[in-house]
């Protein structure tokens, strides 16, 4: 099964490529490409197509009503809005963390470096419960904020905090290697030519790390959109105010409304995909710009 499409592909395509005389340096291009396409189909496309087929049990009108109901619309706004804000915060502070980890030596650096990965490894529900415990009115942090009228747990603000938590490693881990590769000499050259600190950063460092930053942002954002476990405990789940879209999907499943649930999931998927496409296009544009 697994060999069939790839070998068919390679045997059909191999003579053609040799006839054209495009000799690649590395062998096995056809085989690996065939395998890649097949693997992506198996892991990504087939499950997603099942989603589409489930949705097709609805008529167009039913679909439209399901995905544009006021509560569902409010949840899109919350999910995408909170995810976007969280990804922006991570963009700034993730860069800061990466910068410190790359450019400075300090005791305990290894530990700090390992801490960054924690949100990757932690079950999200645990993150949600601990954040709620911290920020609730009787929590360590919440008890000092609530008297001043600052409510974080069970509000959209709490959702953003949870999403910041789970998105942080994405930005740090994508920017870190690129920062490590940027040569100090470039900065020294810029400084010797009379550039200010700010100019050095914006003209020399930023262009080289911007693609990585955008990738990190996109990953943090995409992850936040689909996040359920860490958010659900801190959200408050009030209709029209703090219901995230994944909760709407769960609610529809509770009614055995499979088609409605997949319809909303499909909308999320399409929006996410479009946004990621835009971010990728931005990245490409940025690469071309900085290459000249």
């Amino acid at each position, binding site marked *: 099964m697994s060999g069939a499409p790839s070998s068919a592909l390679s045997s059909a395509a191999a003579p053609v490529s040799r006839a054209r005389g495009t000799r690649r340096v590395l062998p096995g291009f056809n085989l690996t490409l065939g395998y890649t396409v097949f693997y992506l189909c198996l892991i990504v496309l087939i499950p997603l197509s099942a989603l589409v087929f489930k949705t097709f049990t609805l008529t167009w009108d039913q679909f439209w009503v*399901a995905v544009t*109901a*006021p*509560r569902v619309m409010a949840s899109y706004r919350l999910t995408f809005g909170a995810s976007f804000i969280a990804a922006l915060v991570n963009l700034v502070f993730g860069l800061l963390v990466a910068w410190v980890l790359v450019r400075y030596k300090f005791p305990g650096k290894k530990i700090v470096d390992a801490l960054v990965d924690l949100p990757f490894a932690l079950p999200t529900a645990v993150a949600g*419960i601990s954040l*709620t*415990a911290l920020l*609730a*009115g*009787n*929590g360590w942090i919440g008890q000092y904020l609530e008297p001043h009228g600052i409510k974080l*747990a*069970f509000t959209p603000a709490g959702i953003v905090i949870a999403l910041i938590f789970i998105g942080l490693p994405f930005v740090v881990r994508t920017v870190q290697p690129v920062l490590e590769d940027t040569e100090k000499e470039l900065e020294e050259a810029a400084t010797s030519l009379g550039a200010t600190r700010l100019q050095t950063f914006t003209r020399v460092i930023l262009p080289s790390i911007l693609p990585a930053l955008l990738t990190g942002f996109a990953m943090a954002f995409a992850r936040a959109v689909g996040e359920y476990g860490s958010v*659900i*405990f801190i959200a*408050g*789940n*009030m*209709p*029209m105010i703090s219901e995230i879209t994944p*909760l709407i999907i*769960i*609610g*529809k*499943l*509770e*009614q*055995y*409304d499979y088609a*409605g649930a997949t319809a909303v999931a499909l909308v999320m998927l399409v929006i996410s995909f479009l946004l990621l496409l835009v971010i990728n296009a931005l990245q490409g544009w940025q690469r071309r710009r900085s290459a000249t």
Partner: protein
Amino acid sequence: MTSRIKTILAAVVFAAAASGAIAQTTTLLNASYDVAREFYKDINPAFIASYKKATGKDVKIDQAHGGSSAQARAVADGLDADVVTMNTTTDVDFLAGIGVVAKDWQKRFPDNASPTTSTMLFLVRNGNPKGIKDWEDLTKPGVQVIVVNPKTGGNGRYAYLAAWGYVKKKGGTDAQAAEFVGKLFKNVPVLGKGGRDATTIFLQRNIGDVLITFESEVLSIDREFGAGKVDAVYPSISVLAENPVAIVERTVAKKGTADVAKAYLDFLYSEEGQEIAAKHALRPRSPAVLKKYAATFKPVQLFTVAELFGSLGEAQKVHFNDGGQFDKLYTPGTK
């Protein structure tokens, strides 16, 4: 490398042989709801012993727990459970609708195939500082009520129906009931995702003055958080929540476990099974056991869902499905 493969192969063969040997004992899988974990931990050994005594055969019981509807979906999608023990009839109806469970499942066992029941009551802070006695008190300004989101949990659906039924039983109209429930939900600062989540919000986060939950939850709360943290308040009128059980015909036909599965569910109705239920604060059907535990189960005027709403499925359509009565409470403009 090859030696490692040999080892793995040997292990696989051995495991296959071993599982063949174990297959001599019948194994039942009970797909159940989340908070029934402790209850079945006590029921299963008792059943295994009584079955051994009656038939001389060994039986093993595996449990799978999760949200009631999630479990029903898992069974529908192919989880090979022999029996389902749920906390809302709609979950079993769903399985009956797709032919996994007998159409007349409610007639297959006594008491609507519900060996145990529960009801909704209030938990208040120790000493009842807000003086909460009945449903009316939950709609007063300044009282914060914690309840499960009816969209995502059976516990919340029952709380909602109990409040609605209270108005109806007092001679109110549907319009008055809608207004009353609307006022109650305006006092809800946070909706829990499920029963345990709501409990956590109320007790660990200290949010709210009153928690509406199942009577059966009170015991586990006392066990979990220590007695004396909360007082249980019995409202004048509440809803009877049935915990339905059914045999999964698809599985028992395949595994040939119909008899054992029936014996297992019958055991829940036996005096021994009913006694274990009472110890777990689930209301027993047996009058004798109920009398024995009268201190635990205070008398409340209970109405059934069938009496006021037709069935839980009907209530689901009218109240909880998208665009239903519950959604209307939260549509913009009704604030």
